[in-house]
């Protein structure tokens, strides 16, 4: 699909864009640049890292609250020595007074070198990237995109296996409404020979429009029983099934049991199967897995900071126009 790409500026011809808005913009090369930057920063001593964004300002504009994501970005910015400005809630921002998003972003892009934003309105980050003089990082726009989650998921897989190509990855739970799994499936389709096993209740299967995006680029099968496929999997990515998705509470209770994961459900798994989850969890992921070698989700959460550091460092000198 034709998408508007900005001219490569200030990135040494690295990334093919100057804003992190949507996984749909990414090529495999873009993903690899970010993952290798993260790898590099992970090995760097904190004192050296502190110099990377010294004197720079990162704005975190959270029009919709998300404490975890905000803390992760702010930690990343501070680890690189940047100053942080921003707000955590649209109620305290100018948006409440009726200022347009475009105006808010234009003003802030004079103060900050990079803008991280989360908004409940879908497409807000794309619009912001078109009016901002400085790079925008989308930290979630409604149910549309949350690209840094996908990047940290990919980084976590690559770190655990040394590769992404050739792995068999199970996506488990609510595959219909979860934007996390949509973006992940889209991104995995950029790699070679990845097999996807889509395990969900029939009513919560991956939507057709997502299947169309990955069709022909990745092999996938759909299933309703985890037990049939658990032996095959290298990664099992668990998502929560929300009660609101079911009109009938009895139906929900049935599904909840079947799509909850515990130590017993992993008995037949490969020894090096890794379980991932975007966190926070409720009861779909039992704590009895935490102490097993299968648990990768705390590591995954920790990787959020390092991947965000990589993005900040790659975008710090971008001049858009």
């Amino acid at each position, binding site marked *: *699909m*034709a*998408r*508007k790409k900005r001219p490569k500026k200030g990135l040494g011809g690295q990334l093919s864009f100057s804003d992190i808005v*949507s996984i*749909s913009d990414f090529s495999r090369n873009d993903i690899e640049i970010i993952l290798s930057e993260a790898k590099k920063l992970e090995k760097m001593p904190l004192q050296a890292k502190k110099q990377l964004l010294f004197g720079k300002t990162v704005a975190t504009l959270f029009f919709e609250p998300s404490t975890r994501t905000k803390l992760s970005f702010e930690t990343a910015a501070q680890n690189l020595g940047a100053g942080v400005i921003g707000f955590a809630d649209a109620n305290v921002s100018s948006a409440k007074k009726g200022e*347009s*998003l*475009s105006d808010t972003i234009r003003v802030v892009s004079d103060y900050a070198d990079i803008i991280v934003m989360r908004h*409940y*309105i*879908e*497409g*807000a980050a*794309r*619009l912001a990237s078109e009016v901002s003089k400085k790079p925008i990082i989308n930290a979630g*726009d*409604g*149910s*549309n*995109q949350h690209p840094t989650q996908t990047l940290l998921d990919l980084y976590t897989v690559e770190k655990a296996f040394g590769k992404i190509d050739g792995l068999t990855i199970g996506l488990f739970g609510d595959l219909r409404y979860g934007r996390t799994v949509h973006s992940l499936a889209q991104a995995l389709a950029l790699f070679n020979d990845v097999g996807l096993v889509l395990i969900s209740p029939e009513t919560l299967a991956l939507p057709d*429009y997502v299947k*169309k995006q990955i069709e022909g680029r990745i092999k996938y099968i759909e299933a309703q029983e985890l037990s049939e496929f658990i032996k095959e999997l290298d990664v099992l990515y668990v998502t929560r099934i929300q009660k609101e998705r079911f009109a009938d509470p009895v139906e929900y209770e049935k599904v909840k049991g079947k799509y909850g994961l515990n130590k017993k459900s992993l008995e037949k798994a490969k020894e090096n199967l890794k379980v991932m989850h975007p966190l926070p969890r409720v009861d779909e992921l039992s704590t009895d897995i935490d102490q097993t070698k299968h648990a990768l989700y705390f590591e995954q959460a920790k990787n959020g900071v390092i991947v965000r550091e990589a993005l900040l460092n790659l975008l710090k000198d971008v001049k858009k126009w």
Partner: protein
Amino acid sequence: MVKKTKDGLYIKPIEKGTTIDHLPVGTALHVLNIIGKTDSAITVAIGVPSRKLGKKDLVFVENKTLSNEQIAQIALIAPGATLNIIEKNEVILKSRLEMPKKVVGLITCINPKCITNMESVETIFYIENNALARCHYCEKIMSKDDYTARLRL
């Protein structure tokens, strides 16, 4: 521009103006919507026999040319239609309307949570396979029926 069939004349030819031919059946009403209020005389035929399409719609507008935006909207909802400009009973310009790859400002987004429905920003859609339209901003996908009902008039 005589529109003659075995049964005779469906629409009286016009001396001057615009005719839109080979419209898929049912699209003439949307074309009227696109043309909107006008002092020009408009003649419409719906579901008349066509060698090319089996059946088709026709819209003749007297003494008027359409704006580029109106033509682009007709191309979007009825690709393959033929647009003729008539002067002194002669076709002076004939063009086959093609489905655009990108449409700017012509339709509105179906997603109520889309930024284009919240803030004054021109809509942009990419037309993909099977005539689906993907919003540049919220990335939601609309079917042809969805966006035919969402023409910005």
